[in-house]
């Protein structure tokens, strides 16, 4: 009996091995590299403080010049869609291994490597700008890595009062007198006990982008270059926004845009409105 079990084990194991290897030399899986190019229209953004001579200056549809000193956003819930339509999720329920903070000030964050993507041809990519509501709880026990990264002093991607993450954090200046602009987004969704009495605004946006040519994973690990055009922050498909400074209910240049109605206008511009616009400011520059 013991022997039989042993044989069975060995044969099952060898079967498993056989089924995992293929005849040709190309591996069963490989990396896919996502590269984020943050731009004003076609030019990569250069950050700078109010007196910087090198900072990129952009002009909005409303004629307001503006520049950024800080630019960060969260990407999560990444899915690659195969030619046959099959969706390959990438650690979509694990912020430690499936989410990242893109920080224009840190070169290393602008590329995000997806490991162990099954070989095949991919025609489309989906990802989230921000964090899905069900994961947006600042759960330090479950996701210590992402929590630490988002909470770091030089990142500040936490929204403590809302017990969630900041999805975008943009600091900068506008108009000739360099007034402060400070645009943060995040969800304020709060469920009551039993999920009743839901309140708040969901600032998570799901992005879908068709690839201009298939990304072929196998012996090669493709690089998908994604453009995030922050010109659309103020001059987007959803809204044309004019910044104004003050504490009135329609002022929007500083974080009282957390009056989420103001915030949602920026969110829709950056991440689409979820219905007619599922790309927002994002597009694919190239697949190599």
């Amino acid at each position, binding site marked *: 009996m013991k022997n039989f079990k042993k044989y069975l084990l060995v044969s099952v194991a060898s079967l498993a091995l056989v089924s995992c290897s293929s005849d040709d030399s190309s591996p069963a899986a490989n990396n896919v590299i996502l590269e984020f190019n943050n731009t004003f229209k076609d030019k990569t953004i250069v950050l700078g403080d109010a007196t910087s001579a090198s900072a990129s200056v952009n002009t909005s549809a409303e004629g307001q010049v503006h520049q950024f000193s800080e630019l960060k956003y969260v990407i999560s819930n990444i899915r690659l869609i195969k030619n046959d339509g099959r969706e390959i999720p990438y650690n979509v329920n694990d912020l430690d291994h499936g989410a990242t903070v893109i920080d224009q000030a840190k070169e290393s964050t602008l590329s995000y490597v997806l490991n162990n993507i099954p070989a095949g041809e991919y025609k489309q990519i989906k990802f989230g700008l921000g964090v899905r509501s069900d994961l947006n709880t*600042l759960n*330090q*026990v479950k996701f*210590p890595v992402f*929590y630490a990264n988002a*909470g770091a002093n030089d990142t500040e991607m*936490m929204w*403590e*009062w*809302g*017990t969630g993450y900041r999805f975008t954090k943009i600091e900068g200046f506008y108009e000739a007198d360099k007034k402060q602009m*400070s645009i943060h987004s995040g969800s*304020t969704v*709060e*469920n*009551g*006990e*039993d999920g*009743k*009495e839901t*309140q*708040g*605004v969901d600032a998570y946006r799901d992005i879908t982008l068709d690839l201009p040519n298939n990304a072929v994973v196998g012996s090669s690990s493709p690089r998908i270059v994604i453009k995030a055009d922050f010109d659309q922050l103020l001059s987007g498909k959803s809204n044309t926004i004019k910044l104004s400074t003050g*504490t009135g*209910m329609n002022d929007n240049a*500083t*974080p*009282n845009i*957390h*009056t*989420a*109605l103001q*915030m*949602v206008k920026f969110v829709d511009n950056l991440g689409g409105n979820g219905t007619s616009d599922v790309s927002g400011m994002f597009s694919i520059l190239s697949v190599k």
Partner: protein
Amino acid sequence: MIKIKKLSILVLVLFLAACSEDENVYMDLDNPEIELPIPSGFLAWNSAALKNRPTKYGAELGEKLFTDKRLSKDNSISCASCHIQASAFADHNPKAVGIEGRIGLRNTPPIQNLLFMKSYNWDGSKLQLENQPIVPIITHEEMNSSILEVIEKISSDIGYKVLFKKVFGDETITPERIYKSIAQYEYTLISADSKYDRVKQDKEKFTILESYGYEVFTQKCISCHSGALFTDQSFRNIGFPVNIDTNEAGRARVTGNLADYMSFRVPSLRNIEYTAPYGSFGQFASLKELLDYMNNGVLEAENLDSFFKDNGNRIPLSEAEKEALVAFMLTLSDKNFISR
């Protein structure tokens, strides 16, 4: 036979504990629920509390956590540093002060009668008390720590080990257990023993001035400060001086609704004697100052509460009425609550 009975209870308890994900099912027969009868005129318990009923040791554990300075990054402040019992679990700073003297956004709210509240914080951002304790722990202007940092600091404390075991059945310290225990303690902070309450029970009588104040109150204040809690728990913009902190938008920052811009929850008037200064960021040093402001006229706003809008943006009050109103409000002080 008695032994067998005990064994079967133990088995039953084990069975229940093993089969349920809800930690609350664990019941130590030596850790009874605290009797918290609903005071006359008060609302029913909120539904979250029904699932996190305060127990003897749960509340004791919560109080230990509430007063533990290790919840803050530099071990300098506890919850009780701002929520001071003598001030009805509020304090006297205009805006809350956290570690290293950091100034927060708003006035520390008193902690009282939370068992009967539907939402928490001036903007109602939290709908369950159990979801609140994490906020001050991680907020930069408050305790600036993290829950794992807290757990690491307190995990070797024998007192905690004993209490966690008594409350939850084992010594494991988890974030959820910490939040539940603090909430349990806070649920037990019930204030319903003021002169006003005793007058309602025919045990005492108002003075003439207090009586006049109550009359003015029922004419000009009670539509918002209604019921035994002295708040209808609604959110209103009543044109108080605006907090220019760019993070402030009142309830609108939660709901995204412009109609909620600079709206705050109607505060309870219970123990108001002990919670000066007043307003969402301590705009008014005294009750007299606040009533003067309402009489002189509040700030115009698109979403100004209709009670003010319909009355020329003010609540007209004579000096005599103000004096009487203050006298009445002082009958809402619960001396046993602040010194129990």
